[in-house]
């Protein structure tokens, strides 16, 4: 427990002193809500089913935090620790792998939750998006989605050969996830084929889980099961591929 607390503190300090990374973690999603909200407004439009852009798709913006945490933040920070030799030095102490993993995920979870809640709050406070029908349900779904993407990030950290690969491939994945999140594009007006492809995007699963909770509509088990499946597979892959040693 002492080791876990000390590691959470140290990793948080390490992360918070990197201003660019910190800005992206905390402010990217809320800033995007603010900017797109100011440009396009939240007036009812036919392509959003007669609702405002943010009214119909605020969770899509929150999903960007998931994408960024999962495909960029977690793999890049883990690989930086691994390839500089910081993990190898930790490996030579009595620190257990599970303690290290728990501490890393805790820090990224807290940062991610703050980013998501901030994005949602900007929508609610600045653009008068109606509060969700179940605040607790939405928060729990956000937390669950974040856990899924933290596991995904862990798996990707094991798969990527280097920090460079993590940044390069991570950025491509990030763009794909952003495009399919629904934050940029009204999904409803897209052609059937494109929508079918989008349905494979994990951020869509998250949006499909949260949007009904927000609107008070009927929820389905499909997105929950898909996310749970991704969690299990990612956790297994991440555990299997975790290494302390730098890439030779």
């Amino acid at each position, binding site marked *: 427990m*002492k*080791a876990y*607390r*000390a*590691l959470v*503190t*140290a*990793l948080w*300090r*390490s992360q918070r*002193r*990197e201003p660019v990374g910190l800005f992206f973690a905390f402010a990217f999603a809320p800033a995007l809500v603010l900017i797109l909200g100011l440009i396009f407004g939240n007036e009812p439009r036919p392509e959003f089913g007669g609702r405002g852009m943010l009214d119909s798709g605020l969770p899509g913006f929150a999903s960007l935090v998931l994408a960024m945490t999962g495909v960029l933040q977690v793999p890049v920070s883990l690989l*930086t*620790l691994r390839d*500089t*030799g*910081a993990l*190898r*030095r*930790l*490996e*030579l*102490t*009595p*620190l*257990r792998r599970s303690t290290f993993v728990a501490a890393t995920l805790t820090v990224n979870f807290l940062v991610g939750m703050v980013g998501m809640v901030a994005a949602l709050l900007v929508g609610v406070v600045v653009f008068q998006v109606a509060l969700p029908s179940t605040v607790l349900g939405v928060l729990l779904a956000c937390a669950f989605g974040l856990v899924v993407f933290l596991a995904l990030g862990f798996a990707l950290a094991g798969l990527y050969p280097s920090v460079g690969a993590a940044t390069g491939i991570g950025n491509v994945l990030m763009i794909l996830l952003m495009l399919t999140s629904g934050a940029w594009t009204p999904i409803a007006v897209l052609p059937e084929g494109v929508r079918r492809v989008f349905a494979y995007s994990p951020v869509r699963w998250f949006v499909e889980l949260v949007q009904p909770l927000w609107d008070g509509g009927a929820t389905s088990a499909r997105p929950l099961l898909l996310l749970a499946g991704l969690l299990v597979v990612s956790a297994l892959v991440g555990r299997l591929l975790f290494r302390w*040693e730098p890439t030779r």
Partner: protein
Amino acid sequence: MTAVVVCEDVRRSFDTTVALDGVSLAVRRGEIFGIVGPNGAGKTTLLNCLEGLDSPTSGRVEVLGLDPVRHRAELATRVGVQLQSAALPPRLTVGESLELYSALYPQPQPWRPLLSTLGIEGKAKDRVDRLSGGERQRVFVALALLHRPELAFLDELTTALDPQSRRDMWGTVEQVRDQGATVVLTTHYMEEAERLCDRVAIIDHGRIVALDTVPALVAQYAPVGTARFVLSAVPTDDLSLADIPGVGHVQLEGRDLVIRGSAGVVPAVLSRLADDNITVTDVSTTSPGLEDVFLALTGRGIHSEGTH
């Protein structure tokens, strides 16, 4: 005399190179054991195998009676390691780093006095990535000693240190030994091995070519020293010095007499010169050291390039 580290015919080969080629050695409890050799000789590979970071391709390694890979968790509290290339989570200060590592060990020593011992007590609030090479080196030595290990592995611990800090570091290592710990260190500084190590293993191309105390190695492999005499006048007769036991090569140029031979010949030469009524105005001797041992064993200097 118990052995705290045992290697038996340890081999480690990578794809095309053989880094360790049958290393056998035993480190005794409470000694400072030096692994000496040029860069690329296999020193770090050997340490990695002892630390459990790497496994030998064949052969047996035992540290404190345990297998370094299988029992790494148990060894972690008993062994301290300073790696040649180590890092910490980025952007932490020295104090924060030591705070973190203190929390990872069950019984760490207070880290502030440790920083004072290492001469970096004023750096606690500085970020590790902004320290000089020598200061950073000392932070990692502090991390290796933080939990008062009974066995410390120090890889090139004085690289990047200036001469004064290097001598201070030697004092620190001796203190660690005097408190009962065993120290295994690698170095390519001959002076460091001579001054600091109770016993030395000389490694070259992945093989131990010699292992003993420094005086014993010198006596066995490089018994020849050089003595220079400055005579008060150019001698008129031939000097008959070659028959003195221990004298090797004799060379006279004007008033300068240079004799190569075993360390004990100087008094005998002086008395023979006195018998011949030759006055000596100056004597200087160069005693052989590990550098000469290495030269005798491998046919090249330890710092010469192109050892591979």
